[in-house]
């Protein structure tokens, strides 16, 4: 309990928030890395998943790719990437993108593929082109599921982006690694608490967004 109190005292100290290695800056870095990673994962996985869902085929392949990507241990991947790409931010970004792809890919595919065939069939029957069905029917109806995929990807990345500090001087993971190295448990706990709080806040924001994205009952 003392450790936790010390951690809270450290967090409450305004001095720890300021400066280029202060909490505010680390928080900003952490969120920035998360945003870049999630954006890259969406850019890569969303079109593939959406397209496969729209065509109603390739589902097995999608599940296979997502499963394989999920089976890769992120820390191992990060180490390999760091060996190949050197110290810096690129290696953790690559490893985290691989982590973020499966939930986005799965959600994109299943979100589009599970829009009721009676609805897409009716849209086609009254004269919508395939692209119009995708843009005006499947995407709007799948938005909550797509957001759900981005949400779980984002949460995993926020938690795991602490590893970015393993190869670069970035993010909230710095506190955790520094705490570990110096046996400074209050610092380690404070870093972990920050990550947890960020995750909870971002998750709540997604929950609200998902609610508003439901376009019908």
């Amino acid at each position, binding site marked *: 309990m003392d450790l936790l109190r010390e951690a809270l005292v450290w967090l409450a100290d305004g001095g720890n928030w300021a400066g280029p290695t202060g909490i505010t800056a680390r928080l900003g870095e952490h969120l920035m890395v998360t945003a870049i990673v999630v954006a890259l994962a969406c850019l890569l996985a969303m079109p593939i998943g959406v397209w496969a869902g729209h065509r109603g085929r390739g589902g097995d392949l999608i599940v296979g790719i997502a499963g394989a990507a999920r089976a890769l241990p992120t820390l191992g991947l990060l180490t390999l990437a760091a060996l190949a790409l050197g110290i810096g931010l690129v290696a953790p970004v690559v490893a985290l993108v691989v982590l973020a792809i499966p939930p986005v890919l799965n959600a994109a595919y299943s979100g589009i593929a599970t829009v009721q065939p*009676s*609805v897409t*069939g*009716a*849209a*086609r*029957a*009254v*004269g*919508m*082109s395939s692209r*119009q069905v995708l843009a*005006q*029917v499947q995407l*709007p*109806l799948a938005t909550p599921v797509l957001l759900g995929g981005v949400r779980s990807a984002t949460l995993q990345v926020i938690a795991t982006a602490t590893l970015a500090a393993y190869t670069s001087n970035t993010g909230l993971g710095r506190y955790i690694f520094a705490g570990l190295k110096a046996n400074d448990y209050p610092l380690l706990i404070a870093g972990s608490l920050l990550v947890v709080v960020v995750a909870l806040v971002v998750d709540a924001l997604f929950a609200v967004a998902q609610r508003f994205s439901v*376009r*019908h*009952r």
Partner: protein
Amino acid sequence: MITFENVNKTYPNGTTAALDVSFTVPAGSTVALLGPSGAGKTTLLRMVNRLVDPDSGRITVGDRDISQINPVTLRRSIGYVLQEGGLLPHKRVLDNVALVARLNGASKADARERAQRMLTLVGLDAELGSRFPHQLSGGQQQRVGVARALVGEADVMLMDEPFGAVDPMIRRELQAQTRRLQSELGKTVLLVTHDVDEAFSLADQIVVLRTGGSVAQYATPEELLTNPADDFVADLLGLSDGARDLHVVDRGGRALVTDGSGRFIGRVRA
């Protein structure tokens, strides 16, 4: 006008849904495809707007061979009423109707105005236009479906069991409205139903289909009643077991009419 000439369709799983089907829907008239479930009625209907392509044979709409028309273009030129409405759940009622006008090139404002007019035409309050489909009753959704099929001002309309999912009272009301609209608008209508009464109520001519997708008889209701082609047609119409027989009985000098089960349903006016 819609024509089917020797149309055949067997699905990849081996089910034959159309077997040498030929018939004509004359311009401005209503033809019903009547038959048991699984006979191939929906398949024939969906061939008209190329949701299904035949294996062989020819289908024309307004004298044009539809295999030569781009499917999306073709569908926009044909009104389609789907079973259970087939409305888009995420769009408001007015937008559901306006959408089809938009597909046909109407401006946003024009499309909404036309959609509003169609909703009024099918007897829906203007206020309902801003609701979502799930906020309407089944009968109201079906009316929206009809409004959507009319808004493109297509000459040809397809209706697949349009009133199958609503209760009998509402169904009769919608059928009466459809007859009224039909006499005003004079569309060429191909209608699918498994309900003999609905076919008799709406169609000028009836294509009776048997399981396996072949035409058992193509005739007016009058001809079907006087001359059913075979036992299958007679059974389907309810002529074999007396279900469709009416009887005249004398009650104190008055000629009353009873139905197949002996219930009084009216009287004879001399």
